[in-house]
């Protein structure tokens, strides 16, 4: 970098940003790799069914296909909201409804 570049102020170093973004997206894509194509739709429909009964948010349903010896296991985790916030949400929904 030359003297005049220095006077202009140095540009932000972008290689480290690239590396960080890639690290995250590559890890995410690797974990999704090899899982069945129907998982995203299954996740969406499950979320709709659960929402009929419990007020959960978008991120509450996590589905993964795991290997256990010779067979595959569909691992489903639903995070329920804690009682107080669920009650508050239900009350809000009731008021609106």
């Amino acid at each position, binding site marked *: *970098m*030359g*003297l*005049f*570049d220095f006077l202009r102020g140095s*540009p932000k*170093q*972008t*290689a*480290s940003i*690239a*590396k960080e*973004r*890639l*690290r995250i*997206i*590559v890890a995410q*894509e*690797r974990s999704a*790799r*090899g899982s069945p194509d129907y998982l995203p739709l299954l996740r969406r429909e499950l979320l709709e069914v659960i929402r009929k009964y419990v007020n959960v948010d978008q991120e509450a349903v996590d589905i993964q296909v795991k290997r256990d010896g010779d067979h595959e296991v569909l691992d489903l985790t639903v995070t329920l909201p804690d009682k107080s916030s669920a009650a508050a949400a239900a009350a809000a929904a009731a008021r609106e409804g």
Partner: protein
Amino acid sequence: MTEFIVVTSGKGGVGKTTSSASVAVGLAKRGKKVAVIDFDVGLRNLDLIMGCERRVVYDFVNVIHQECTLKQALIKDKRYDNLHVLAASQTRDKEALTKDGVERVLNELKDEGFDYVVCDSPAGIEKGAFLAMYFADRAIVVVNPEVSSVRDSDRILGLLSSKTRRAETGAEPVVQHLLLTRYNPTRVAAGDMMSIDDVKEILGIEVLGVIPESEGVLAASNAGVPVILDDTSNAGHAYDDAVARLLGDVRPMRFLDAPKKGILSRLFGS
């Protein structure tokens, strides 16, 4: 024993054909019997890079459809008797390639006693790219130190370990290498380009070679002489190192440091 090597990348324009040509010439230079095949049906280019575009009579698709013999379609290189080029078809669509047809041609090359068959993959992950990698024993994944190229390479690495004959039959997995091209040490030093270590860390596989960004590459393709034959070009030397490593040599990486600047260019920028 014939080894099938696919040169692939996912992303276009990263240097697959340049690398295929130089790797094929590098192997032939060392006395190996080599065929290099252009899988990019409809967008033939390897013939230009190899400098044999005016000698193409029959192509890969003609051989697959048994419109000529393999011998008739193989173009013997003018520099090395033991190097042959099989051009892609310029007129057909990419559906013209079939798995059985490709397998038959590769088996015939094996029977002819070729040591190496270099398969130059088209960009993308469609049929041509799939067939170029399907029978591979070894893969050279060409990658630029740039976000979209690195991400696409990771996708290709995933396909190599699931959608190849070796993966499907449970044989030893395809040997995978990274070949970093268009590497600019000055920009790496300035923090504007990911380094070899960054790319290696993200993708998690070994680097076969680093090809510096070089004017020699364009000059070589202009002339139809693969850049590995250019003794004055750093890119040529870097390809030669990569081929030596492919054959088991241990060589240190060269051309990774930014050239030293004089006092004037330090003051005024380059």
